[in-house]
């Protein structure tokens, strides 16, 4: 049995593979539509975005098949190696990187540009899985926690230095993995509260927010029966809240860049800037909103075709879908993503192997983050953060990166029964 090493295709999770195939092909058609005009040639024209995307799809398909026949143990064995190689690739951008629109985060290979940030996620996922996958790793152990965070904070900081804020923020999604592995939920509550205080402060100003919160805290304290134990926590929380609230103006003015600040204000409707920072979102909303229930029809979208929406084939690809396929089409995409991500989370939980499980969580969390941010910004619910929609947006690095992530997972998942049988063989 062992010598034959037959790979049973039935062990692959075909649900994910089918969703993947649908998304990639649908994405490709939409990239064609986004760049289409009446003089557009064949969808295979390699001088055009859609032609190149076809090439990337071919490469991805090849990698996907190759990955499915790789020895699953290799992922585990070489995880740190891959991690450090990819970190080195990210660092190399500082030296041989190509500057595009003020951001230095590309490496030119021939006529193609490689974006190491898209691959760094893979390295982190492998390394995190390996590190936390060791049987005695416990997140409650401070050393383990710090190293885990360091694993994804290192590339994040490097990418931030390359001014690619969007790609850098994606690494925050690994906190979801840590949450599953035992990180206290309190941190997420604190994060959520911070966001709420942040938004409230933007709307009402720090004096109101601090004042009202302090008043509530005071009332709570006065009517509380156990004053003795509450004095210090209430005082600390009130201080933290007022302190954070008061520092928001400082953060907005000095930490964030002007365009980032404006994007945040536009998202919360506090700034009307349809010409510059608000332009993308406004045009994006117009394109999607004008799609109606059933859309304008394939290749019939006017807003995207006439270049009203910038970056419509990459970060704003969802506009083309929304405009040409309407609410029905948009819903299809959202359902596909929800099913895919939930499926990956579900798969994660059925893994017997910690390495596999953590890796699956990484994949799901990255997809979740991309999905939430990308579509959220296209429909004006999230500030504009330039990250692609997985499998849809134009771009080789992004597509190949996600393909590797997903098919590593499929390969690992397919070994459940093999491992069982090997275990059986052993006994």
């Amino acid at each position, binding site marked *: 049995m062992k010598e034959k090493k037959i790979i049973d295709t039935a062990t692959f999770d075909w649900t994910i593979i089918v969703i993947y195939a649908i998304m990639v092909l649908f994405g490709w058609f939409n990239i064609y539509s986004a760049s289409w005009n009446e003089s557009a040639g064949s969808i295979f024209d390699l001088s055009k975005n859609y032609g190149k995307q076809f090439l990337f799809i071919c490469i991805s398909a090849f990698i996907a098949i190759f990955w499915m026949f790789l020895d699953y143990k290799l992922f585990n064995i070489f995880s740190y190696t891959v991690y450090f190689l990819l970190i080195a690739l990210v660092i190399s951008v500082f030296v041989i990187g190509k500057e595009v629109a003020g951001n230095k985060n590309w490496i030119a290979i021939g006529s193609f540009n490689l974006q190491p940030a898209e691959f760094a996620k893979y390295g982190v996922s492998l390394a995190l899985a390996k590190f936390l996958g060791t049987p005695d790793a416990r997140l409650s152990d401070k050393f383990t926690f710090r190293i885990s965070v360091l694993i994804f904070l290192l590339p994040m900081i490097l990418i931030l230095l390359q001014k690619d804020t969007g790609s850098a923020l994606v690494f925050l999604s690994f906190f979801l993995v840590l949450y*599953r592995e035992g990180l206290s939920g309190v941190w997420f509550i604190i994060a959520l509260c911070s966001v709420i205080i942040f938004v409230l402060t933007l709307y009402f100003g720090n004096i109101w927010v601090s004042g009202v919160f302090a008043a509530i805290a005071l009332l709570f304290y006065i009517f509380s029966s156990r004053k003795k134990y509450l004095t210090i926590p209430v005082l600390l929380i009130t201080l933290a809240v007022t302190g954070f609230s008061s520092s928001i103006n400082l953060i907005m003015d000095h930490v964030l860049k002007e365009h980032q600040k404006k994007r945040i204000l536009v998202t919360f409707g506090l700034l009307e800037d349809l010409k510059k920072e608000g332009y993308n979102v406004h045009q994006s909303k117009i394109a999607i909103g004008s799609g109606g229930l059933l859309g304008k029809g394939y290749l019939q979208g006017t807003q995207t075709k006439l270049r009203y929406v910038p970056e419509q084939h990459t970060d704003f690809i969802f506009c083309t879908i929304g405009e040409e396929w309407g609410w029905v089409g948009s819903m299809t995409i959202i359902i596909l993503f929800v099913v895919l991500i939930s499926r990956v989370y579900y798969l994660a939980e059925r893994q017997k192997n910690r390495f596999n499980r953590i890796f699956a969580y990484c994949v799901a969390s990255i997809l979740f983050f991309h999905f939430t941010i990308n579509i959220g910004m296209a429909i004006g619910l999230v500030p504009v953060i330039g990250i692609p929609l997985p499998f849809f947006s134009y771009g080789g690095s992004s597509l190949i990166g996600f393909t590797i992530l997903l098919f590593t997972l499929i390969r690992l998942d397919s070994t459940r029964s093999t491992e069982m049988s090997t275990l059986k063989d052993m006994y």
Partner: protein
Amino acid sequence: MSKGGNRNLSLIIAVIAIGLIYSIRLFYLQVIDTSYVEFANANSKKILTIHPNRGLIYDRHNKLIAFNDNFYDLSISYPFSLKNFDTIGFCNILNISKENFIERLKKAEKTVYKGSATFYKNLEYYKYAALQERMYEFGKFYIEIKTDRMYKTNSGAHVLGYIGEISKKQLEKQNEDGYYSKGDFIGLAGLEKYYEKDLRGIKGEEVILVDSRGRQQGSYLKGKFDKTPVSGKKVTTTLDLMLQEYASKLMQNKAGSVVAIEPSTGEILTLVSSPAYKPEALTIRNKKLNYGKLLNDPTLPLYNRAVTAAYPPGSVFKLLNGLIGLEEEVIYPETTFPCYRGYSIANLHVNCHPHPQNLDLRGAVANSCNAYFCNTFKEIIENPKYKNTRDAYIHWRNFMLQFGLDNKLGSDINFESEGNIPTPEFYDKMHNNRWGFTRIISLSIGQGEILITPLQMANVISAIANRGYYYTPHCIKKIDDKNAIPVKFKTKHKINIKKEHFEVVVEGMKQTLINGTAARTGIEGIEICGKTGTVQNPHGKNHAVFMCFAPKDNPKIAIACIVENAGYGATWAAPIATLMIEKYLKRDTVSSKPEMEERILKAYLLKTPKSKDSVEKKNELEREEINNQKTDTSKRKTTKTNFKNVALITEKLALNKNERKKNN
């Protein structure tokens, strides 16, 4: 593990929650809030107007008169910014300096209407061609193709009229359906104005897509929402271009007009007002250059004398008095009146020229005897049938009204005057309610207070040719090859005078060209019936008048011709009319009277143009004269009746009457 399982579930729930939130948001954006559709339309769709071809104008023999010619205006749409604009390249193509470019931009900015303005009018063709190739680079600029009129003839400008850009007032005045928008062309005068609705066609629309930089990106949905323009209707006029051009030639260097009508239908064959201008002088592109010049020209070429100018008709009016005399049975065809080199009554004496004696009505018409018609008119006015002179006058006047006098005929030629047949009230006022035949004796021979336009004159002769009826003169024959012309042009207007009376007068008119006043102007082989007139007037030499029709039986053409300040009607007006009749009836033959034709063609009868000042001075003098006359009645009694001054007063009064009507 169970803890991990819970956390796993909470993550899946989070994914589903985000999915739900996004679905609701999308449902709101795409299905509930429709404002985005409007935003998208405003963003990307632009409606271009396609102007239809204006209807072509033809003559009665289907000869083309007016057609269309394209020209190109370069327009600019707003908001416009010079960012990323290849100004130098643009200026090079247009061959203008950068300063001029900026100047034009500023000018255009002031005239923005509905988001666009004209930047460069009437683009030369080579610039248009060069620009068209690179148009996609100059996003906010676009070329408007406009259509101007062109003409196959140098004659008929007064009838055809002209088109021009619609004025602000007209734009405001148009009703709610508002067909016109700023910059549209509209018929401003002549047939172009009268048949504007038929000629203009229906505008088309092209919905095009505009990209984020304002560049045109082809049609929307392959032209699904486009509207094809409908060309204007073909308008066939009743004009005979050949005759029209010939008449213009005959009338050159003369002031006056000729109107020729086909009596059986009322169709205007020719309408010439001289001095005239070429129709092409007032095309869209030439108007700016010529209009001022024409307006200030002292010979008044813009003035359509044929319908607007009104003259005392002179001797041709005798025909009507003769007809009324017969109908009222105060004279008979055989009645004779003596002529003592004129006619005397009380202190008045109306002169007459030498002619055979003992003339009956036919002879009196042929020889234009003043005495005969003074007597006739006296009989009419003092007819015992009526209780007094005033009553008789009212009856006489009613006959005149039946001939279409003292009213606009209602033809399709604009700026028609009413002319004037004085009301009894007018004379009441003038003579303190005490007036009789002697006060209005001048009306016997077509002088005095009456005023008739050349068109009315042609209509009168047309009615005589028909022996008692007429159709309102008109220029429209067919619209789009259908005979659907306005009903009013098909309505017969009958005159309550017996046909046999007309035959008598016609007989006299026939003799006019045989042995009467116009004996030398007859054309061999054509039975022409005519009447000469020589009108005294306050502006200088007598006006020469002639009206005639031919052939005598079953008339094909009736003509009224007036040449201002030329002299005898027989010398100047009659030849023009008879030459035209020959041309019309024999078509394209060389004139049988080449020396007469040459004499007319060569004649220069225009008054030397006067400066504005001297004209005004003269008017002042004349006004004084009138005042003197009014007060000093004794002077008037002793002198010969001065028709000139009477006519002048009448002209002024008629003018006031028109103005009052306008004000109302």
